[in-house]
């Protein structure tokens, strides 16, 4: 029986994507980002916001990531790439707020592996975007606002700056 992979291995591979220049930068978002900042919640995938290098076209392509995954033997499953048994969804930054969320992400450490995680204030702002307003996301935003390290002033400034004040 093959030993199970470790979660840290999936994180290490994200860093490798950046070192290889396939992505400019990344930051974990979604439910796993919440786990870093608040209490554990159930989730089955890892959302990763990515800044892609200039592609010389207005159409965004994830083909570089898919080629990298295929070369390493990581299968694609629907819109996910399964990296060391963790389904990872790569989400190209969809606007300036998402760009800033990646650029200002915190570098934390998981079992000796550096990992970029979207800061809680930016997660709240992303959850307040009109396309993302669902009951589940409102609940997550509320949990993040209650987290001890969340800078509520920064949240307010972000919501103001990006026209997201409810």
């Amino acid at each position, binding site marked *: 029986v093959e030993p199970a992979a470790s979660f840290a291995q999936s994180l290490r591979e994200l860093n490798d994507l950046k070192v290889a220049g396939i992505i400019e930068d990344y930051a974990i978002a979604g439910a796993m980002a919440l786990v870093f900042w608040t*209490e554990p*919640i159930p989730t*089955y995938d890892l959302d990763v916001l990515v800044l892609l290098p200039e592609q010389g076209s207005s159409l965004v392509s994830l083909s570089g990531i898919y080629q990298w995954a295929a070369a390493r033997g990581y299968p694609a499953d629907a819109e996910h790439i399964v990296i060391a048994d963790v389904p990872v969804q790569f989400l190209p930054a969809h606007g300036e707020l998402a760009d800033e969320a990646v650029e200002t992400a915190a570098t934390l450490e998981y079992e000796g592996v550096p990992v970029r995680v979207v800061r809680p204030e930016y997660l709240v702002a992303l959850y307040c975007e009109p396309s993302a307003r669902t009951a589940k996301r409102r609940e997550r935003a509320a949990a993040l606002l209650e987290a001890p390290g969340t800078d509520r002033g920064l949240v307010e400034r972000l919501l103001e700056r990006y026209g997201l004040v409810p």
Partner: protein
Amino acid sequence: MTTRPRTRPTAELLDRLRRGKAELRARRTEMSLKEKVAIVLKLQRVYLPLLKRHRPLAPWERPWDVEP
């Protein structure tokens, strides 16, 4: 509808219960990342049958076979 008189919790008891819950959440928030990931892995197994009863699962919705 008629309601029979019931014994109700005191404000003090309710307050204590709420405080207890907040303390539990704070303790879970302050756990190490490895401990949190271990809990996520456990939650994935507990939550899956409930989710399955609620809606069809996507192919990637399954517990991860990884060590925390």
